[in-house]
């Protein structure tokens, strides 16, 4: 029984035929649900007929096999076709249930057929699908056929008196002994058919609902399977973020050990040359001096670039020191007060640093603040970072890619972002980060 809160809309459109059944008879009979149910059962019956027909008369010719081989094939076939059949059934369920059924299978994390097979055989979902496919050949056709035949009979009752005289079927016999010949008899039969229509509609809808329930029971992902998928997604997202951080670090290291050192060597060589040429007062001395100044400019640019890619201080000294350096370079005066008893895991550390850097960049770009401040405190299992300013306020997380990107980055490690920025200020951004990522514990 569906439970609705009393203040909800009185009649939200039913999502599936079970909900439709619980409506009043008028609502059900005027809706499309009986038709959808009939269609559902009809195509189910069709699928089973085609499948059994193909198995019996098709290339396999089961009917010509010895009995034990027939039994074996009957068991093996569902195992092989179980997964595609289940996929079709999940898809077909949309006819009588607007809510889609997810795939209960986990994505294999290793390539190759062997890994795939091992995973599938071990999964409960595979065996439920197997069971369903067996039921599909044994029990479910009876339901499908029962529903279809019932409607067929009713339609026949209504149509037969009109069709019979033309088709030349001879006298119409109903229930074995009732011979219809006269006009009143015919009218009675039609009336009987019409009277049975609502009952047929109800029955068909109920059969479809029961069948749909059965499909959901066996083929829909269980809660643990949904959870497994969510965990898998979370893990892959963290792996992605980690790979991204590792790449940043690698670029920083390569630039530091390569370009920066060679540039320092070049500056030194130019310096020595300049020193040697100083007595000559020649053009050469001036040009070398200029080259050295340029190289020094490039070195300064490179230093800024490298710090932007990955700050060395973050690895060596952690978030407080690294953020203090960002604050030192911030055009708006920033007071930093971050107290942490221990280091965060590297992935969270990087998120914390880049979140604060981005927040301070926003302060400089948009807030027109005269001062800003950053605090960081451990609260329970999380690190709570606050960035505030005395600017004009009015920042919204929907605005711009900066804040949205920030929220995404924080969410990767299982953190949260809160923004308070009334027009007129002050603005405060709160970043809550877990001490560990959801996956590394």
């Amino acid at each position, binding site marked *: 029984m569906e439970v609705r809160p009393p203040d909800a809309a009185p009649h939200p459109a039913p999502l599936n035929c079970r909900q439709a059944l619980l409506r009043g008879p008028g609502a059900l009979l005027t809706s499309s649900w009986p038709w959808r149910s009939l269609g559902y059962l009809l195509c189910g019956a069709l699928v089973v007929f085609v499948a059994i027909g193909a198995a019996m008369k098709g290339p396999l010719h089961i009917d010509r096999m010895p009995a034990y081989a027939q039994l074996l094939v009957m068991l093996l076939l569902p195992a092989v076709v179980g997964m595609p059949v289940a996929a079709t059934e999940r898809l077909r369920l949309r006819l009588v249930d607007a809510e889609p059924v997810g795939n209960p299978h986990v994505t294999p994390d290793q390539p190759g057929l062997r890994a795939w097979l091992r995973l599938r055989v071990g999964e409960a979902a595979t065996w439920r699908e197997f069971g369903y496919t067996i039921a599909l050949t044994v029990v479910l056709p009876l339901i499908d056929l029962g529903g279809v035949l019932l409607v067929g009979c009713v339609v026949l009752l209504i149509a037969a008196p009109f069709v019979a005289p033309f088709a030349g079927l001879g006298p119409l016999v109903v229930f074995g002994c009732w011979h219809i010949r006269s006009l009143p008899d015919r009218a009675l039969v039609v009336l009987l058919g019409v009277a049975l229509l609502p009952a047929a509609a109800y029955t068909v809808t109920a059969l479809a609902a029961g069948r749909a329930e059965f499909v959901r029971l066996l083929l829909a992902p269980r809660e643990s399977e949904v959870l497994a998928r969510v965990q898998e997604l979370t893990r892959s997202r963290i792996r992605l973020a980690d790979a991204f951080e590792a790449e940043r670090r690698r670029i920083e290291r390569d630039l530091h050990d390569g370009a920066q050192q060679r540039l320092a060597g070049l500056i030194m060589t130019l310096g020595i040359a*300049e020193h040697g040429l100083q007595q000559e007062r020649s053009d050469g001395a001036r040009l070398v001096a200029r080259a050295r100044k340029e*190289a020094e400019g490039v070195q300064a640019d490179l230093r800024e670039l490298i710090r932007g890619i990955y700050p060395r*201080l973050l690895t060596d000294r952690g978030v407080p020191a690294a953020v203090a350096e960002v604050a030192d*370079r911030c055009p708006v005066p920033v007071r930093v007060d971050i107290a942490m008893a221990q280091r965060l895991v590297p992935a969270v550390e990087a998120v914390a640093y880049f979140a604060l850097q981005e927040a301070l960049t926003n302060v400089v770009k948009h807030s027109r603040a005269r001062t800003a401040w950053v605090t960081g405190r451990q609260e329970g299992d999380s690190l709570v970072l606050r960035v*505030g300013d005395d600017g004009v306020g009015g920042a919204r997380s929907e605005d711009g890619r900066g804040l949205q990107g920030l929220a995404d980055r924080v969410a990767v490690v299982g953190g949260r972002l809160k923004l308070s920025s009334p027009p007129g200020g002050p603005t405060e951004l709160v970043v809550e980060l877990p001490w560990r990522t959801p996956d590394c514990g």
Partner: protein
Amino acid sequence: MANTRLRIVLAEDAVLLREGLVELLERFGHRAVAAVGDSRDLIKAVEEHRPDIVVTDVRMPPDFNDDGLRSAMELRGRYPDLAVLVLTQYAATAYACELLESGEHSRGGLGYLLKDRIGGVAEFLEVVESVAAGGTVIDPEVVRLMLRRRQMNEPLGRLTSRERAVLGLMAEGRMNADIAAALHVSQPTVAKSIGSIFLKLGLSEGDGHRRVLAVLTFLRS
């Protein structure tokens, strides 16, 4: 300047730069008694040669973190007369401050210099010699950052004169209306100044008696 021929231990893991530095120092009459590319070798070389000055990089093997810096601090603690010059690509006040705070009994000179400065050959040699002679040289870029931070951490220094006046009257125990009358401004202006004072002193709403805390900060200064 060659009359003070310095005995130098050099630690730098980039080979070309290391060789260039040796050449530079020897060209101007000093002697590199050892040139190493690993922070562990640095400590061994100092133990062996007892140089006048150590010139070292920050990031070095074996860990490629701040191994060079840590070795430099350790050496300062161990040899009170040893002069240490750190050459680096990092304009980081944190490293410079740690270096300054290390080796409390050290009488030796101290330097923290960006690698770009090697290009000004004469100035660079002056730095080396002055550090060897017991002087302290911090890169101008790093000094600039340090001064900025100091200003930032002087809480009352960031208040405007109006805010300071308001805070003074708050310290006398006056209410907002009194303060407004005394300064000939409106009450909302006073309220705004107080909000700004709280913000600048880092008193957020969770701190309870912000008014009292602000006054305490004022009285302590």
